[in-house]
């Protein structure tokens, strides 16, 4: 038994496919991204090492980068409030026996299984100026004045896209929170009730403290996926109107693949990666006391 478990050749053969695949497609390109971001490099010229110039330009002169950055921060805050809060509320409602509990849960989760592209096109149709469902519903209630081409209005376009994101993902976080609440030991709930805790106190003193690990995971996922946001804006608005819905990933895509600015695109990729790592560091730090694992 032990001999079989420490056979070097078997270990090598078992690990090799995974390691080759992973190293070739994850660490190697990451290293070359970091190196490329330090180079002046585009579709016409070859690589020339220029140090931190790409980053300096990015942070000090590139207006579009800052627009996208601001939009991304708005996107992140919006994702957290529009997804995590409703998810928690619905999870609370569904956590106690209620008729149709399973059905409501499964309906809430349905959009998660759909593709970002399909969701974008569905909401493109909702917001459409002429045939959009939203306008038609407003018209039905006589609110014709509010009719507009929602995604063409720079002031609200980003918010409109965020609603579509929330539509898709709230159910995801809700299911995670719901299973977290259902795992709280019955005795804990019972004894709190014996002590005369009302619903509000149950939520505040028992459910919220118990759910810290789930909050950590959901907040982490929502934050990181907000920095990766691409599909919905790409399909719905392509970053427009006038960069109002531009996001970092979209800028990175345009700089890299439409303009062929490889060095600069790499720097943007590195910034996105850095933001994801920093954000998960901050979230880990913020939850260090309440979540021990």
């Amino acid at each position, binding site marked *: *038994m032990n001999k*079989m478990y420490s056979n070097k050749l078997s*270990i090598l053969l*078992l*690990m090799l*496919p*995974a*390691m080759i*695949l*992973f190293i070739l*497609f*994850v660490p190697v*390109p*990451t290293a*070359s991204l970091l190196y*490329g971001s330090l180079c002046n490099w585009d579709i016409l010229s070859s690589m020339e090492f220029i140090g931190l110039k790409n980053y300096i330009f990015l942070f000090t002169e590139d207006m579009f980068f800052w627009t996208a950055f601001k939009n991304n921060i708005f996107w992140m805050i919006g994702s957290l409030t529009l997804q995590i809060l409703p998810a928690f509320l619905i999870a609370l*409602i*569904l956590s106690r026996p*209620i008729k149709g509990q399973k059905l*409501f849960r*499964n309906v*809430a*989760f*349905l959009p998660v*299984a*759909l*593709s970002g*592209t*399909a969701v974008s*096109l*569905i909401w*493109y*149709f*909702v917001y459409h100026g002429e*045939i959009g469902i939203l306008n038609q519903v407003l018209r039905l209630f006589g609110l014709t004045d509010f009719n507009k081409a929602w995604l063409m209005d720079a002031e609200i376009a980003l918010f409109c896209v965020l609603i579509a994101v929330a*539509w898709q993902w709230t159910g*995801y976080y809700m*299911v*995670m929170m719901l*299973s977290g*609440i259902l795992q709280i030991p019955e005795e804990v*709930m019972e004894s709190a*009730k*014996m002590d005369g805790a009302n*619903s509000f106190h149950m939520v505040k003193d028992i459910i919220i403290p118990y759910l810290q690990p789930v909050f950590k*995971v959901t907040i982490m*996922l929502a934050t*990181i996926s907000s*920095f990766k946001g691409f599909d919905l804006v*790409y*399909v719905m608005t392509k970053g427009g109107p006038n960069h109002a819905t531009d996001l970092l990933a979209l800028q*990175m895509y345009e700089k*890299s693949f439409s303009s062929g600015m490889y060095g600069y*695109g*790499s720097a943007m*990729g590195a910034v*996105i*990666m850095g933001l*994801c790592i920093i954000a*998960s560091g901050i979230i880990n730090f913020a939850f260090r006391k309440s979540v021990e694992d």
Partner: protein
Amino acid sequence: MLLGMDKSGKKPSKKVREGGRMLAFVKYFVLIVMVVVIIFPLFFVFMSSVKSDDEIFLNPFGWPENPLFDNYKIVMVDMQMWRYMLNSFYYGFASVAVILLCAVTAGYAIARMRWKLSGAALGLLMTGMLIPMHAVILPLYLSVRRIGVKSPWIVLVLIFAAFGLPKSVFIMVNFLKGIPKSIEEAAVIDGAGLFKIITTIIIPLLAPAISVCAIFDFLTVWNDLLISLIFINDRNQRTLQLGIMMFKGDYTTNYDSLMTAVCCAVIPTIILYIFFQKKIVSGLTSGAVKG
């Protein structure tokens, strides 16, 4: 279990009972609003998919006067949607196969075998969860072009597999740690080799973990847009998502075709979801924990 449920056996006063009824009303109100908000756009898209463009404009809320199921034939056959679907199936299945092969073997080596670097190997793989695919897509694209292997049939599958791998290995390792070694010990005494143990004992035992990984990874590939957008040029190699997106660009005015195309992407997913709700929900959420 929570929120105002009374198990203490005391008869609730009238006031409490009214409060409870009020609360129940609010709860159902929230839930029903949620259901309407989720179902209504889907239902509407489906209704519009069997209307003509004119009818979408003139009769948005009405039942379609004579449903044009022809729209589906046009989109599926004439506009080649069937091919995009088939392609997406291929990308999904091939990626899942590669991921499972690598994740089961590596997971077994890390969880069971005795070697010094097993912890380091797991740690290295886990760094993959921190690195967003979006960030390294450019160097991948450039090196793939330099090497000259352009066929998305291979490249796409390998990329999806590499980025799906860390999570799957993690799930496999955790799952294997929960399986007692005694079954394998008995098999060794019977003279079974490592290969036989993995194929006849471990893989069946891993079935729940395998199905979780398969669902998660398949849906990731099936729903991807960015990777296919970058690596696929040939019309005939397009994925379903790329296919439906093109309807917005190329046929902006044909809303009926656009809606039909969206339905072609959405309806199969919904049908699968109805049949495999439990598996899909647990597949997508358990894969994410620690993600």
